[in-house]
Every structure is written in structure tokens, then in C-alpha cells.
């Protein structure tokens, strides 16, 4: 277990630029499943045939992470950029980033000494920030980067005690669970499709494509979700709590989870004594909604995480393990 998470989180894959992640996953799962294919839009799908077949279950984890795109190369050699997905501007100041394949730079921010009065007391806008790659002119920068290049965070994966600290745990955590399930061998009656999907963070739309292709009977979106269990939020506002096991969602933005799937997940956890929690807030969305809109009932199971959508997020290993157990038990009962 957790064989792939380090490499998965350290790969660069902002929405629309999932190629490295897809190639990595593909190389690791080939030979372990009955079929692997990539669709027109870049989704990677693996099929593990069941003992009896007939019913099809699809597990969805998105490969992309929040990041940025270069929008302009300025005269002074700096780069203007805009977010791919929801990134609060307050978490990106003075962070190391990689532009394109391997150009290192930082998101620079004016020295405190030079911010006067009102400037010091306000949150900067994206258009005011620049990436500094050390180039001193536009022509020098143009030799290394181009408008439209992706920009990723560079946080190194780290395990400390029972915790994992990394970038992009949302949703490489989900990808990792799918890979670990494939590795471990799922002994199910039904056919299981493992779908590693693209562009969730920029507004989920690709599940529609998958639905046309696969016509699954049931979908579970495997996510890494918010927690808020820190001193900045009163307990009643937390969405999950680290250490309490996988979060099972009953409803989120724009979607009430299929009652049948929700109940089944909860029953499975209870019967097998797997520690779990209900997601306590209905904020945020997942791919489940898009599947449901296309007529495929979908559930959501998530690893609780702190500080997602920032350069540095955090999960607990036992939560990961319990999420794995819940999914495996669930699949093997179908």
C-alpha cells in the first residue's frame, strides 16, 4: 500500500496537462488488468473483469491538480499567469514553481518595506503577481517558456509520523487508491472500471464522455476532500476530521448522492468495522454530479485532507488505509 503516492504527487499535472500522470499510471498498471485504454479526451480507463460479469462498477479519480497557466511574457522577463482551478491567491506568494517541463521560478512578491499603507493591508490580485524565472528580458524568457505553458507547485512528498505531506493529494490520493486496488487484486463478481480522469478542477465535464463509452451501472467518485479541523474554524463548521476514516458523502454542491449507494457504503463500513465518517458539509463538488446527470447513479468516498488547493496538503495514513479497505470490501460484495 502507498506504493505510488510519492511519485504520483510529485508529478506535474495541472488541469489539461495530465500527460505525465497518465503515462506514469499506465506504465504501472499495464499487465495487472484485463484492458487498458485511453479515450479521445485523455481519460485513462482500466478494466478488471469480474468473476460473473454483467454488472459494471466505475471508480473515478481525477488525475489533474490545481495549478496555473502562463498568460503573458512581460518586457522585463517575468511571466503573468492565471489559475487552473480554484487557488486562493493568498497561498501562492513566494512559492517555488516549475513552468513547462523544467523551468524553475518563484512567484515573487514585493518586499514589505516597499508596500505602502493601503497596499500592505490588502490581498493582491492575480494580475499583479508575476513568476520570476531569472530572465532579465522578454526575449531571454521566450527562449525557455511560452504563453500557455502549465505551471505547477514543487512541494516534495514527505512522511512524518502518521501523516503524509504533499502537493496534489487532491486527487492523486484517489489515483493512488485505484492503483493500490489494482495492485492488490480486487476479487469482485462485477466488472470494475478504474477511470483516471482529466480536468476535474476546471469544472467537471468529461464524465459525460465516459458514460457514453462505458454505460456503467454504478459510479463511485474517489476524492480527497476538505477538513477544516484547525483553530480557524469552530468544530461545527468542520467538513471532516483527520483520523476518523474515509468520508462518505450524502450530498454536495448540485447533487444528492444516490440513497442506495450511500446506504450500501455505510452498511459495508459498519458491517466490516471500518472506521468512517459522514462528510459534515455539503460544500464543494465532485465528478459524481456529472455521472448522475447522465443517468449513472454515483456515490462519493473521500480521504479527509487539510489545506487542499494549496502548495501543501496533508492526510493521515490510517485514513488512507481505511478508505482502501472500505472500497475493496465494497467492490468484493458486488
Amino acid at each position, binding site marked *: 500500500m502507498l506504493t505510488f503516492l510519492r511519485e504520483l504527487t510529485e508529478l506535474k499535472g495541472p488541469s489539461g496537462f495530465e500527460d505525465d500522470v497518465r503515462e506514469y499510471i499506465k506504465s504501472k498498471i499495464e499487465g495487472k488488468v484485463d484492458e487498458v485504454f485511453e479515450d479521445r479526451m485523455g481519460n485513462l480507463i482500466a478494466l478488471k473483469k469480474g468473476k460473473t460479469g454483467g454488472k459494471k462498477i466505475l471508480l473515478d479519480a481525477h488525475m489533474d491538480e490545481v495549478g496555473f497557466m502562463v498568460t503573458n511574457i512581460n518586457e522585463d522577463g517575468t511571466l503573468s499567469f492565471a489559475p487552473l482551478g480554484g487557488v486562493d491567491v493568498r497561498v501562492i506568494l513566494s512559492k517555488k514553481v516549475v513552468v513547462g517541463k523544467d523551468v524553475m521560478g518563484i512567484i515573487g512578491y514585493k518586499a514589505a*518595506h516597499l508596500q505602502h499603507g493601503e497596499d500592505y493591508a490588502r490581498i493582491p490580485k492575480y494580475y499583479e503577481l508575476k513568476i520570476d524565472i531569472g530572465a532579465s528580458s522578454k526575449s531571454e524568457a521566450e527562449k525557455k517558456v511560452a504563453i500557455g505553458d502549465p505551471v505547477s507547485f514543487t512541494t516534495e512528498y514527505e512522511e512524518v509520523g502518521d501523516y503524509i505531506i504533499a502537493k496534489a493529494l487532491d486527487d492523486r490520493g484517489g489515483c493512488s487508491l485505484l492503483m493500490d486496488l489494482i495492485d492488490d487484486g480486487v476479487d469482485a463478481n462485477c466488472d470494475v472500471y478504474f477511470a483516471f480522469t482529466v480536468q476535474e478542477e476546471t469544472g467537471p465535464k468529461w464524465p459525460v464522455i465516459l458514460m457514453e463509452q462505458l454505460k456503467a451501472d454504478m459510479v463511485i467518485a474517489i476524492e480527497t476532500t476538505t477538513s477544516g479541523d484547525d483553530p480557524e474554524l469552530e468544530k461545527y463548521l468542520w467538513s471532516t476530521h483527520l483520523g476518523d476514516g474515509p468520508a462518505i458523502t450524502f450530498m454536495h454542491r448540485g447533487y444528492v448522492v444516490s440513497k442506495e449507494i450511500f446506504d450500501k457504503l455505510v452498511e459495508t463500513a459498519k458491517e466490516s468495522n471500518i472506521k468512517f465518517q459522514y462528510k459534515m458539509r455539503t460544500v464543494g463538488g465532485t465528478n459524481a454530479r456529472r455521472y448522475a446527470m447522465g443517468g449513472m447513479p454515483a456515490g462519493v468516498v473521500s480521504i479527509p485532507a487539510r489545506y487542499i488547493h494549496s502548495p501543501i496538503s496533508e492526510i493521515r495514513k490510517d485514513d488512507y488505509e481505511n478508505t482502501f479497505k472500505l472500497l475493496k470490501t465494497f467492490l468484493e460484495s458486488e
Partner: protein
Amino acid sequence: MSNFTSLDTKELLLKVTSIPGPSGYEDEVLGEIENVMKDYSNECFRTPLGSLVCVKKGKGPKIGFFAHADQIAFLVTKIYEDGFIRLSGVGGWDPKVIASQKVWVHTKNGKLRGIVGFMPPHLQTTEEYKKVPDYDHLFVDVTMNPNWKEEILIGDLVTVDTKGFVNGDIVFAPALDNRASCVAIIKAAELLWRMNIDAEVYYVFSTQEEIGGSGARSATYISEIEYGIVIDVTHGDEDLPGFPKIKIGEGPTVVVGPVTNRKFVEHIKTVAGKYNIRTQVEAIPGRSGTDTEDVQFTRNGVKTSLVSIPLRYMHNPYEKVCVKDVEDTAKLLAFSAAELQ
């Protein structure tokens, strides 16, 4: 490799910025600097305030080079039962740049991991969305350390854990204010060690500049110097109304103004011209915000000069300097001492 000395400037910059050395806790980084400097000095010692002084003996006039070695940091001000702490800055931080950084909490038994957490957009209310980060709301998550409860105490130091990197001739790293100047002095010392000069040179790596504690003053007192060059950093590539833009990559600035001695400044400018070292002019009509004033008004007074390395993003977890500027600064220092009669 540098073209005039054997120590690689980039490697030195990465090395000395990789060691945390907050004001009052400069021992480790000064130890590392001393290891390098002992090859280029006749004598190294520490002042009562902890500054490192290395000396190249000589029979002529006494000159000192001063760079502060401390950096800005944080202190633990509050510890919550569930494994979170709050901070306060030691030195001039902008709290806006520390969200989502990895940090080290320095306890008496070693350093522990921390991360400055930030509420994801999904959970923010309209009000939270508008909050400018400050010490009342920023927090450090230390729950991942199994022993945080036993080890972390109020008052423990916290430093941001960023690692420097090189991009061509540019270095991005923490604490380049003022380790870049420390490196310039090391390089100058290496150069002077091979030269036969009259002057006696004091290389001073001082403590507690960032909190106004000036370890430089006591070092000045002890060394009884006649000339002092303070090396610090200045804002590069920024528009300052009423001043010329100081450019990164175009050499150190030589400061003119009341904190410097006009004749000594002229000497430095002449040396720059003679040895083809690029410099920029920086006018400071008032206080310099450096150790220069303290050096100037010690004992019977010291003929001071202030040389600054252009640096961008000062006091942020990543600062930026040009390697060539650091090397030019070293040359300027070395030849300024060598030409003193």
C-alpha cells in the same frame, strides 16, 4: 566556477542559505562560515555578542568588512491542545507571504516539521475570503510530529523551510539578506589571502541586525578599525519614486550620504574604476537601515562606506540575487583594502 577564485560562489550561496540562523541564534551558520574563513585568516574569534571576527594581519591601516549573518524568523506564541501553534515575527516579515510554507520549529532537542495551514476556498465564508493574513489567524500545524506535545514550548524559534536554487546567473534562496554579503566577504578574504597588502583586515560576520541589536558595534569596538565597509542588500529591479532604478546584474551599489565618509567613498569609486568593477550609485540622505551607523559611531569614529548587493523580494522566503553582483562586490572589497596605504 568563478573566474577569479576557487570557491564556487553559487555553491557557497546555497550552502550558507541552507542553515537557519535567526537573530540571536547565529552560532551554526557562523560555525560554517568560520570553517571556510579559517583558511584565509591568521586568527578567528567570537565577540561577547557572538559575532565572528576573522583577521588578516597587516602593518598598515586597519579596515573592517561587516556583514550581518542573522535572518528574520518567528517565535511560538501560543500552543493549542490539538497540535496547532501561533507565531509572531522576529524581524520585519510580511505575514502575507508565509501561508502554505513548510517551517521548522526549533526545539531544544532538534527541529520538528510544521506547515502553515490555510483554509481551502470551499470552506471560506465571504468574510474569510477578504481577510488579509496576519498573526492572529495564521497557524502552524505540528500534529504530524508524534512528540510535538512534549517538545514544543512557547518561545521556540520557527524558520521557513525553503531551499535555494540556481537559474543561470540568478540565485533564489532564503536569507540572501544578508548571507549574500557574507559570501562576498568570504570571496574577498580568499582573494586577499593571496595578495601582499599593507592593511590589516577584519572580516566581521555579525549578529542581531534584523532586530536592531547590532552585533557589529561591539566587533567594531574590539577591532579598533579606522575604515569600515558595511555590506548589506538593497532593493533591486524595483521602481522607487525619485531614485534611479537599481538593477540586478549591474554590480553593487556604493552608497553616498551622511552615513558614509566622502573621502573613503571616493577611494572605493576610484578602485572600482581602476579595476573595471561595475557599480551603481545609491543616495541615502537619512538613516540607512543597516549596521553602518553603529560602526560609524564607535570609539573615536570610523570612516565608513556602505556597499549593497541588489536583491529582490527582500524578507520573503525566496529572495533573489545575481551571482555576478556578489562576485563584483567581493572584488570591490578586496581591491579597496589592497589599495589602502
